[in-house]
């Protein structure tokens, strides 16, 4: 990046441009081993315990959408980042940046929803901050949450554990959050039939680790950039190939129809209540059953596997038995013209 360059919206899209920004601008400023790992949660040792620590900011338009709102999103998103790292969420902070003029009733609704989400996960919001900015300096409300969790003693998740032969499980239908937001924003005709998956995966993650401990190799919540971004990252970091079967990937038909209409690849669309699990081949069926026994994992499926390959590529075996590669999406997805 050179001096004249400016931040583009695409730098926040979760694709390759985001990656470049992080590596060429942000990491060099802070350089340390924990941060450099760029995991969902940082792991730090405090006395005898391993603590996981994470933070995330939430900006979403519209603030209220079918299946959730920015408050629930801010709580569940941070809980999920802790959960996929193999930690039991303990406490959250919640900070608000509010645009002058926001109705108090809206704020109350958002906070009630955040509180409800935290309560369901048995976790407290223990500190926070409030700033108000001039009208026009923010879009209604932005929320930041940070969270700490206690690493589960049985958890041994990490890219380095992944090996050829491991299976890949996704905990339910993909793309629901992203397409719900987009169609609600654009006033598309299916908006009422679609629902964001906004929710917690903590129960799934905890149960998987409890039962299968080191057979659970890796977990990640496929948010921005969708399943494609998560799988490409696994492949990049492990130097292994991935094969997934199109027919096995759970997709809600309405979500698919909305994606088709706008020309989006469903694999690139954001999820907010899903987890991708890499599990050893022998325990895949058991892992799937555990997922399905959890409230947010009923539609879970085994979608593919890790393979040895001369090139670390993610390949999709399509419905008609063709193959194509799946890559890290770039920038933000733009709807097509006709």
């Amino acid at each position, binding site marked *: 990046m050179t001096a004249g360059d*400016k931040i*583009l*919206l*695409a730098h926040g899209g979760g694709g*390759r*441009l985001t990656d*470049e920004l992080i590596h060429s601008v942000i990491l060099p400023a802070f350089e340390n081993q924990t941060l450099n790992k760029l995991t969902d949660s940082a792991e730090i040792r405090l006395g005898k315990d391993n603590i996981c620590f994470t933070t995330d900011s939430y900006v979403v338009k519209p603030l209220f959408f079918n299946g959730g709102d920015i408050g629930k999103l801010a709580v569940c998103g941070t809980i999920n980042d802790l959960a996929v790292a193999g930690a039991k969420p303990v406490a959250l902070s919640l900070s608000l940046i509010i645009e002058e003029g926001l109705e108090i009733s809206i704020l109350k609704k958002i906070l009630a929803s955040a509180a409800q989400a935290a309560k369901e996960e048995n976790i407290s919001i223990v500190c926070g901050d409030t700033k108000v900015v001039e009208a026009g300096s923010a879009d209604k409300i932005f929320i930041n949450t940070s969270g700490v969790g206690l690493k589960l003693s049985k958890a041994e998740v990490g890219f380095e554990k992944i090996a050829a032969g491991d299976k890949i499980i996704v905990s339910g239908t993909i793309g629901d959050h992203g397409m719900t937001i987009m169609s609600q924003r*654009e006033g598309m005709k299916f908006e009422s039939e679609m629902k964001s998956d906004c929710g917690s995966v903590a129960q799934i993650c905890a149960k998987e680790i409890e039962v299968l401990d080191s057979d659970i190799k890796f977990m990640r919540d496929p948010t921005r950039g969708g399943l494609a971004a998560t799988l490409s990252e696994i492949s990049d970091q492990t130097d292994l190939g991935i094969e997934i079967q199109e027919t096995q990937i759970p997709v809600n038909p309405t979500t698919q129809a909305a994606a*088709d209409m*706008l*020309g*989006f*690849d469903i694999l690139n669309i954001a999820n907010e209540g899903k987890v991708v699990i890499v599990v050893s081949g022998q325990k895949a069926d058991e892992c799937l059953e555990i997922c399905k026994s959890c409230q947010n994992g009923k539609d879970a499926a085994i979608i593919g596997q890790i393979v040895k390959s001369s*090139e670390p*590529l993610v390949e*999709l*075996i*399509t*419905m*008609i*038995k*063709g*193959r*194509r*590669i799946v*890559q890290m999406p*770039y*920038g933000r*997805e*733009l*709807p*097509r*013209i*006709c």
Partner: protein
Amino acid sequence: MLERINRAYIQIARAQKSLGRKINIMEVCGTHTVNVFRAGLRDAFPEGMRLLSGPGCPVCITDQGYIDAVLSLADRDDCIIATYGDMIRVPGRNGSLEQRTNRGNIKIVLSAEDALKLAKQNPDKKIVFVAIGFETTAPATAVIANEAIEQGIKNLFIFSNHKLVIPAMKALLSEKNHKIDAFMCPGHVSVIIGSDAYKPIVEQFKRPCVVAGFEPMQIVEAISEICRQLADNTPAVDSVYPAAVTAAGNKTAQKIIEETFDAVDGCWRGLGNIDKSTLKLKGKFSELDAEKQLGVKFIHEEDLTGCQCGQVLCGLMDPPDCGLFAKSCTPDTPVGPCMVSSEGACAAWFKYTRRKRRNQ
């Protein structure tokens, strides 16, 4: 399903035998290009058949001069640019719309109707609607042009560069060294223009024209039918998208296009000037015409250095044959529009083909 694919295989082999060489089918529509890749069809079909990506991506065929003219309007403080999303990353001589989004006057719209809404919401600004696309998007532009007149809206300006598909298909076949054996015709456009619109092409150039929907199996069926026609040497118009496409098309949409626009000569990227291929607002809409009211000049400009989109759009080369492909030209740093648009051939090749092939 596999049975239908096998049937297509048989027809491809027959066609190849009858022509004595590889067969080249052009998909005219960008959505076909993308869906062929997404479904893994290129990988599933035999070597003997090539699919050429045609001039069916609206952003890709838009002349450089038009893009620069839009950028010059975006630099004006009195204008808000209402554009389809695909357009914002296309590089002009002086950056792209995306690099100007911090100015706050670039709005992505999903439909022409949104541009009209913007005009009502911002009475003190001039809303410029970047009206591009084929017969699919032209009717919606026509609708807002008529509504704006009826409702007395004075701050909506339409910068029309809508294109017609049939003149471009004819122009391609009139080129001396074209390689096109048949067309897979665009589903959405055909819903509007009707399958009869392709008859003159079949009669004059003896090339099969088969309309296909966007489902992988419909594409397979279309390829199968095209190859059968090639093998039997019986070129005809056919549709494997029968539910939606009629012979006559959508008369209402055709009528409003005719009443609102004149078909004039216009430039296409890569194809140059094509007779009666571009829709401009009729004289009675001149108060909405951005070219007449905002003093934008739009002259044909050569493509940016090194970009071979023109060749790609004519089916004369595949994207990986372009020297810049996957080197200086990537979806993050697009040099030409074919790499920008989600419907562009270069972007589709980049996203969905194995890297091996890219480096060949």
